[in-house]
Structures are given as C-alpha cells and as structure tokens.
C-alpha cells in the first residue's frame, strides 16, 4: 500500500501532554479536543493539518502518559502516518490499537523539510526528494489490527458484531 502526504516536522521527545494537554482531556469528545492538539508547542498546527498529512519527528515520540486520546487525536486529524526515529512504548501500542500507522526510521527525520511531500510504500520504503529510505515491515499481527481499524474493531469482528 502506498501513501503520499505533506510533511509536518516536529522534534525529539514530543510528549503526550504536548499532543493533548491535561486541561482539554475533560472535553466531551475527541472532535472537541483535536483543535488543541500540539497546542503548547505549536498552537497553529491542529488547524493547519490537512487529511493525509504526515508527521515526521525525532526520537521518543509519544513519551509520557498512557492517555489514549493522544493517538486518537492524531488519527482524528486524519494524519496518515507518523514517522519518527523512535516511539515511546505505551503510545506505540495505543496507536496500533487505534489504527494509526507508525513508522520508525532513523534518517528521514534529519532530512525532512516541512511542507514538502513524501511517498511511503508501507513496509517497504519511503521516497523523499528522489532518495529511497528502507522501511522494515510491521509484524503481521500488528498490521492486521491496523488494517481492521484498531483493536476494538478487530474484537467486534471476533465477537460477531461485524
């Protein structure tokens, strides 16, 4: 599967309190919360992200709390995937469980420029400014959860609700 999107560049250690600050967690829905995504760092970002955009960040993306609203909000902004040098482990599980694609790559975050386009062939390679960057495939069981649209959707299927 191939996706193409416009890049937003973020740095190292983008924590869950930056992705969605505590004060907005009490809002009624993810739709209400999403306009405050990344607001401590870049208040304009949530309003500027377009469906299909791709976030490229440094190491330890999603560190901090287990709040699942963090990947849910990124998903609801219709970001097609997050490429980072590394991800924090709770965020990683939460993202997969919500069907948000995460891609680990050590080189891209150092060369990516905001506003440029990048093409990703999932599990194979990314193409940016004429250069190919190898990507390792996700384990099959995790890919199945993402393809099902998340763990709950996979459970519904299993319980005969879909």
């Amino acid at each position, binding site marked *: 599967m191939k996706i193409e999107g416009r890049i937003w560049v973020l740095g190292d250690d983008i924590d869950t309190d930056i992705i969605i*600050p*505590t004060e907005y967690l*009490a809002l009624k829905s993810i739709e209400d919360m999403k306009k405050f995504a990344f607001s401590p760092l870049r208040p304009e970002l949530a309003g500027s992200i377009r469906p299909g955009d791709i976030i490229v960040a440094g*190491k330890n993306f999603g560190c901090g709390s287990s*709040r699942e609203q963090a990947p849910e909000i990124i998903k609801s902004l219709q970001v097609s995937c997050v490429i980072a040098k590394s991800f924090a482990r*709770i965020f990683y599980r939460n993202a997969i*469980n919500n069907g948000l694609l995460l891609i680990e790559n050590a080189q891209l975050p150092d060369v990516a420029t905001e506003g440029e386009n990048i093409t990703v062939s999932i599990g194979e390679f990314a193409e940016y400014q004429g250069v190919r960057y190898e990507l390792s495939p996700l384990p099959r069981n995790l890919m199945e959860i993402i393809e099902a649209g998340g763990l*709950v959707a996979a459970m519904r299927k299993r319980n005969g609700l879909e």
Partner: protein
Amino acid sequence: MGMTISEKILAKAAGRDRVSAGEIHTVDIDRLMSNDGTTHLTIDMFNTILKKPRIADKDKLVFIIDHNVPADNPKTAAAHKKMRDFAKEHEIAFYEGKGVCHQIMMEEYVRPGELIFGADSHTCTYGALGAFGTGVGNTDFLYAIVTGKSWVMVPHSLRFHLTGRFQEGVYPRDLILTIIGDIGADGATYKVMEFTGDGAKAMSINERMVLTNMAVEAGAKTGIFQPDEKTAEYLAACGREPKYLLESDPDAVYEKEYYYDLSKIRPVVARPDNVDDVVSVDEVKNVIIHQAFIGSCNSGRIEELRTAASILKGHKIHEGVRLLIAPASNTVYLQALQEGLLDIFMDAGAMIMNSNCSVCWGSCQGVIGEGEVLISTGTRNFKGRAGHKDSKVYLASAATVAASAVTGKIGGHR
C-alpha cells in the same frame, strides 16, 4: 541460558517453561487497575461498541478515583458517576478519595510474581514488590478485562547495580533523576530496568517505589527489584502472600549493565521541560519559585513527609510561595497526623490536600499560571504539565522541595 526475573514472570503468565527477549506471547493478566483518567472511555467502549460483553474475571479488576478527586467540575463528576455506577453493577473493587492509585495498589493488592496491567503509565511502580506492572491505554485495558489476556513482547533487561549507601541529605529521588539524566528519557525504551546490589537490598519498599515508579520516564516497560526479606516484611504487614518468589538467574542475559555508587550521588533537579535534563541543585540555586509540591505516585509517603517535616520544623514558607502537600494515601495521611507532621506543615504555612494526584498532572488542584515556576516531587516536568503552557516545572526530592519553599528559591537543605 538463565532468565531474568521479568522473563520468569512473563513465562509463568504465558504458561511456558521459558521465554526470551524479543518473543511475542499471549499472557494471562493477574490484576487490572484503572483510574479516573480514562476509565470512562473504557466503559463507553464496553457498553456502546462491544455491546456489553462478559467480563473475564471481575475479581481481578480494581477501579480507583484519584486523578480529579473530589470532582472539580460537572464533566469530571459525570465521568466519576459513570465509573462508580459501572463498578457497582459489575461488583468491581472501587476506591474513591482513598489515595493515589499506585499507592493503594501497593497497600492492598500487589504480590510478587504477578503480571499487572494498569491504564496508567506509572503502573511500573509495582516492581518494587517484585511484580511485573506495566501501563497500557484504555483499548488494551478493555481487551484485557473482556478476555483476561493480552499480548506482550518480552523486553530486554538493563541491570542497575547499586552499591553503598546515600550520604545524609541524598535520597532515592536524587538517584533515579541522576540515572534518567544519564541514560536519557528514551534510554530504556521498551526495556526493563532491574535494580540490584547491596544498595538496592538496603532500600525500604517505599524507597524502591521511588525508583520503579520513574522507570517509564526513561521509556521502560517496567522497573523491578527481586523480592527479599524487606518484601516479605512489607507483605506480612499488609497481610498478603506472594504469588511467586522469583529471582534472576546468575546466567541471565542483560542488554547492558550500569553501576552506581550511592555515596557519590548528589542532590539534583530535572529542569523544565525534560525529565532527563538533570543538573545539581547548586546549578539552579537562584531560580525563584512560586509554588512547591510534595506528593504524587513518586512521593508523598511517610518517609518523604518525615523528611519534609524535619526541614520545615520551626520555619515559615517564603512569602509569595504556596506549598501544597498531598499524602500518598489516607493510611499515610493518618500516620502523618499521628506523628505530628501535619502540625509542622500547617505551622510552616503549607496547604495539606486530600490524597490524590494533585499538582503533578495539572488538573483538579494547584494548577500554576503563566510564567510561574513550580518545584515538585511529581513525575513529569513536560511543557505545561502543571498548568499554563508557559509555566515551568523543576523536579526534585521532597527535601529540596521543602527547603526551596522556605527560601523562595531552589536551594539545598544541607
């Protein structure tokens, strides 16, 4: 080839003789804890998306209201009501206003050898009793309450050899901040931080909790100590038996070994906005503070309260500084009351809060304003963590926090 204590716990949970780092296994979960940070979301998914499935084993569940307690607005009140009603309907153990969730779990439930999932990142605390506790999101949590199971990738372990004893005025809090400063906020990502050595064995369970609790701040899946006499004493005092008494084999494999001489550790702070930006207290000693906080799942236990009281006794907190103290649980609160510590705090001018997450997570109480500086025993100092996005949080030991509250500037207590 031997196994680490973490591999042994996961092997038991997977029903296997052995497991190795990197393998993915389906495991049975011994205990599941969720707090008011996200339980309402889990309940919504349970009721509306999964159409009220059967709970695998209600006796394994514990619900604890500690993040926004008492409720501070109609939204949190509604979330609490949902949680309260669900716990009643499904006969789930339920605590409200009794203390910080991880402290209650340690006082009431955690047993060595158990695999525990918590819908809270600091579930790694339970390794202080030789259990494997790890934080998950509410979807993983929902899956586990419905099936009783989950999947884990067996993590590699890092071993921290602790030798010697702390000098006077230096605490486990200074050690764990020093370690995180050394290895970085992603220095243990996905790994286990196992603490061993004579310095580890000398620590009380409460002191061990200070280390294991912060493992996630280095990215770890959990932090863990091997159970010993101190573990047995703690369990006996709580009236509990271990599930399994497991130890790492002498030929267990570690990805990396670290050595810390406790006598060389000095009082430190983590500067805003990263937990791994750690410097000596002296390096920031003139920073003016507006608020000081002692509490959170990393602190607020009787040892920290005694330390703070010994520093505050006979002093008044500085004009223009608010000092908030939240004992970790009502058990600790009562003990502090009986020992006369609360009198000392009140004489010094502190506000004593009910047992809850309080200032640490920037909601409910003690939120700081634009441009304000907080010194805290909390778990995190992320940008905006304790309130306004342009406020600052320094992390330090209870001793450093108490001393800073008296002088109005970050400072030493020796």
